[in-house]
């Protein structure tokens, strides 16, 4: 009982601390965490509108939206999930806001020089980390690139899969896999040597957003979706390793 009243007290303090307008709740793919925190801060600074960010796996967030989660805007790590939700009448369209890229990454501590996908066939490379292609579009792009480079059959037995792109990056950062095909946004140049993978080897990884149908903050959600296309937001996306969507 006492705990509850302490909780209520703190909750009300929190609410008082907020601006008078209810915060906009944005559900976003976990891989968008760093750029989106910066973009939301810029949006709040410009408009005075508070933003609550809720991160999770794209599939989990979609399941939650289907069950009526109190989100206003959904930023997915792909384009197909927002399209599916839009087809079900749960989302108001799907607008591209960023395009992901994959890179070849080697942990600096491993001390191997790898500059092309062809190098992956070398015997000193025992493990190659990619994201699970069933769940992560970056994993699918990685396999496409390995196939297009003509090395898939030779390297297939070396593949280890991370549950998501972040876990895949951890495999490489920790040196458990010598090499990884990671999202550019997730590859930290402080610990990894990074080589870009030519964009013509895989289909572009478009990411789309959509406003949740029936959101009580539809106008503000639209404003945020609009903000994602400004030069300010695009500069932040670029800084965190996302290419900008073609107009």
């Amino acid at each position, binding site marked *: 009982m006492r*705990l*509850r009243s*302490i*909780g209520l007290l*703190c909750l009300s303090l*929190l609410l008082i601390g*907020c601006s008078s307008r209810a*915060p906009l*709740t944005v*559900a976003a793919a*976990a*891989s968008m*965490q*760093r750029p989106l*925190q910066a973009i939301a801060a810029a949006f*709040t600074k410009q408009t005075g509108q*508070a*933003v*609550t*960010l*809720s*991160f*999770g796996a794209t599939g*989990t967030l979609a*399941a*939650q939206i*289907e*069950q*009526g*989660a*109190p989100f206003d805007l959904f930023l997915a790590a792909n384009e197909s999930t927002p399209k599916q939700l839009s087809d079900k009448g749960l989302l108001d369209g799907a607008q591209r806001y960023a395009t992901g890229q994959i890179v070849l990454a080697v942990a600096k501590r491993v001390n191997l020089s790898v500059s092309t996908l062809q190098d992956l066939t070398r015997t000193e490379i025992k493990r190659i980390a990619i994201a699970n292609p069933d769940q992560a579009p970056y994993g699918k792009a990685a396999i496409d690139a390995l196939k297009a480079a003509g090395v898939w059959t030779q390297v297939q037995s070396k593949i280890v899969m991370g549950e*998501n792109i*972040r876990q895949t*990056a951890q495999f490489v950062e920790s040196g458990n896999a010598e090499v990884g095909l990671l999202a550019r946004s*997730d590859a*930290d140049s402080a610990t990894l040597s990074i080589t870009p993978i030519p964009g013509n080897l895989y289909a572009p990884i478009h990411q789309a957003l959509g406003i949740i149908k029936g959101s009580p903050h539809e106008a503000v959600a639209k404003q945020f979706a609009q903000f994602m296309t400004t030069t300010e937001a695009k500069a932040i996306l670029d800084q965190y390793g996302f290419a900008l969507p073609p107009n």
Partner: protein
Amino acid sequence: MAPSLLSQLLISLQIAAGATLLAAAIGLPLALSLARPGWRGRRVLDLLVNLPLALPPTILGFYLLQVIGRSGPLGSLSLAFTKSAAILAAALVGLPLFVQAARNAIEGIPGSVREAAQIDGASRLAILRYILLPLALPGLITGLLLTWGRSLGEFGATLMVAGNIPGQTQTLAIAVYSAVQAGEYNRAHLFALLLVSLAGLTTWLALRWRGTFSEEMRV
């Protein structure tokens, strides 16, 4: 509007406390029935109670969301994506732990003790109140502790049914996950350290409390 550490801490405590109470309230009658041998459906009930141990929490959370979500049979209660949903999820995950501990404690009481009370004319309620519960108390406290610890660390099912909403349903355990996803390992370590200290401190206190009861028992 960065969610403060305090809010995550309080949310974690609220959810763990709520879940422990709920699991105990549901678990005690279950443990009493399961401790009584020879009735139809006992095996099935046993199996159902223990199911959450075998199911990965994410999957348990997914099905719970189908039940309490907007289009589920309990959708009209609007439980999903609130603290109540998190409490429900954590209680469900902790239930088998409480029931197992409580049941073992109750089964450990010699049948002769109960029979003697019966012969002396004690009602069933009196037997429960003055014989079973006091004798089973150390075991019940163990059950509460296990549920409390499990609830504090609950992540998979909670994330599914309550979401990761800062200031509302983001617990310390979920904050660790979020920080790792963002590659902010220092923040993750801080949250994890806090979570471990909290679990350690509460468990230590409860064990001391339980210890005093066990000593009384031995006298």
